[in-house]
């Protein structure tokens, strides 16, 4: 599964070089050009920056919020646990697209609403994972030992519990990243995500659909890009899981 990182790195290296929107002839362009003569490959490459940015920010929000809430719920227990997890259940009823619709109608379309919507929608996953991680580690002997030498509950959580569930959370992050990419593509397809001057894979597909009868390729490559990126992330997650902790296979929610 380390194959993934091979496949994954060259991808993100090429992402950084910025192909602009030129209007040169065809055939020179590996993936062809779009209706304005813009090079599809370059546009896909620049579009990947959008996906990357949205993914990182959205997963960042979910990671920080979700892990904090999950650890809080798991460590505090009792009514705090109940209240936090009920909230997470309620958030589960809001798919990213629905949240985005809500946010867009309030703050207008743009990359921010998309990132926040996807981030909030991915939070419950992290919270549940972190909580169940805390619950299973909380009673371990080394945690008890930490209490015994006089550490407070929160120091123990931070120094002994959180590091021990890092790998599960990182795996969750790659999966959430993949989910964020898919949601972002959907949002920008709808025109609720990144706005026109900046290319994004979802909107490229939207534009391609208009010219589907003339040039089918336009509708294929951006989708392939999304699928490859997401697939790479899934495999990366699997790879990390297998490397870091073989016991985790078959567990998790």
């Amino acid at each position, binding site marked *: 599964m380390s194959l993934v990182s091979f496949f994954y790195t060259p991808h993100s290296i090429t992402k950084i070089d910025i192909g602009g929107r030129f209007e040169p002839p065809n055939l020179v362009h590996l993936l062809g050009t779009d209706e304005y003569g813009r090079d599809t490959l370059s546009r896909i490459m620049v579009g990947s920056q959008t996906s990357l940015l949205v993914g990182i920010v959205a997963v960042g929000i979910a990671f920080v919020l979700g892990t904090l809430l999950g650890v809080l719920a798991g460590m505090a227990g009792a009514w705090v646990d109940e209240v936090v997890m*009920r909230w997470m*259940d*309620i958030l*589960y*009823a*809001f*798919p*990213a*697209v*629905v949240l985005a*619709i*809500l*946010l*867009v*109608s*309030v703050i207008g*379309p743009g990359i921010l609403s998309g990132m926040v919507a996807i981030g909030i929608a991915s939070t419950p996953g992290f919270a549940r994972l972190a909580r169940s991680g805390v619950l299973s580690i909380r009673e371990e002997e080394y945690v008890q030992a930490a209490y015994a030498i006089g550490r407070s509950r929160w120091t123990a959580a931070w120094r002994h519990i959180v590091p021990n569930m890092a790998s599960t959370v990182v795996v969750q992050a790659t999966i959430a990243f*993949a989910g964020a990419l*898919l949601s972002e*593509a*959907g949002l920008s*397809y*709808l025109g*609720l995500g990144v706005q026109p001057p900046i290319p994004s894979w*979802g909107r490229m*597909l939207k534009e*391609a*659909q208009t010219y*589907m*009868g003339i040039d*089918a390729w336009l*509708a*294929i490559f*951006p*989708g392939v890009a*999304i*699928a*490859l990126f*997401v*697939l790479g992330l*899934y495999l990366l997650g699997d790879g990390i899981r297998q490397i870091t902790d073989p016991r985790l296979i*078959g567990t998790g929610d």
Partner: protein
Amino acid sequence: MYRYLLRRLMTLALSLIVISILIFVVMRIIPGDPAQIILGTDADENSLAVLRDKLGLTGPIYVQYVRWVQGVLTGRLGESVRYREPISQLIVSRFAVTGPLAVMAMLFAVAAGIPAAVYSAYRKNKLGDYLLMMFSQVGLAVPAFWMGILLMLVFGVRLGWLPAGGFIPWSESFLGAVKSLLLPAVALGLICAASIARLGRSALLNVMAQDYIRTARSKGISERSVLYRHALRNALIPLGTVIGMQFASLLAGTIVIESVFYLPGLGRFAFMAIGMRDLPVVQDIVLFITALIVVTNFLVDVSYALLDPRIRLE
């Protein structure tokens, strides 16, 4: 059983209340006056006041909320400013597209996903299993709306077998309506089928490792019968969970796929309402969709309790 049901019903009601408050509050964060946003800056004070009254924007905020909830409960949601039709009617007519679309997609997902899961578990680590799991892995990585575009490209544009978008109303032609929903339903369903196949396989394998399966085998029952009569039945609960969870993402998927195929469903309606700043409509649709998800999850939970007495005792 009744106590369990009562408890679940209470959490359901509580969730719905919290969700409605959440949506209401978010919609009220909008800077400025919604009436002004709808009518534009050059509207005169008189028509603004009329619209504000119509939108239920007068009085203290909790009164506005209560009025909205009353409207939701009685089905009197007021009139859409843009369409000049009752919102509840608009939602019902759009749901006549989204509902069947989601159901068709789900049926397809189950019909394709469960046999794939059973086959994969049965042929564990053999070629067929590998191929199926590879396909499903790819399936999970493909955005449903792109799958829709591809299907449209092949079956709509190239082969011309099915309509490449648009919707023939149920009242006009039942078959026509089904036909226009077929491609989007398959696109959504395929993606769902991929996760059902993967999670179903692991649920089945989990069950297959149990002691009672070993007992069944040691009694000399055929492998096939072990699989169907003992394993599949017990794997139905985790499978049901997966399918229930899929419903939310499927419903979210309809929103995008409706735009791909130009279907006049709820998602497209919400999306167009945003464009037209018809905010009360957005608010009502978001509530409708989230309520649908919560109620479905509730029904899934309750059906487990009916199927599996162990859950009631929890």
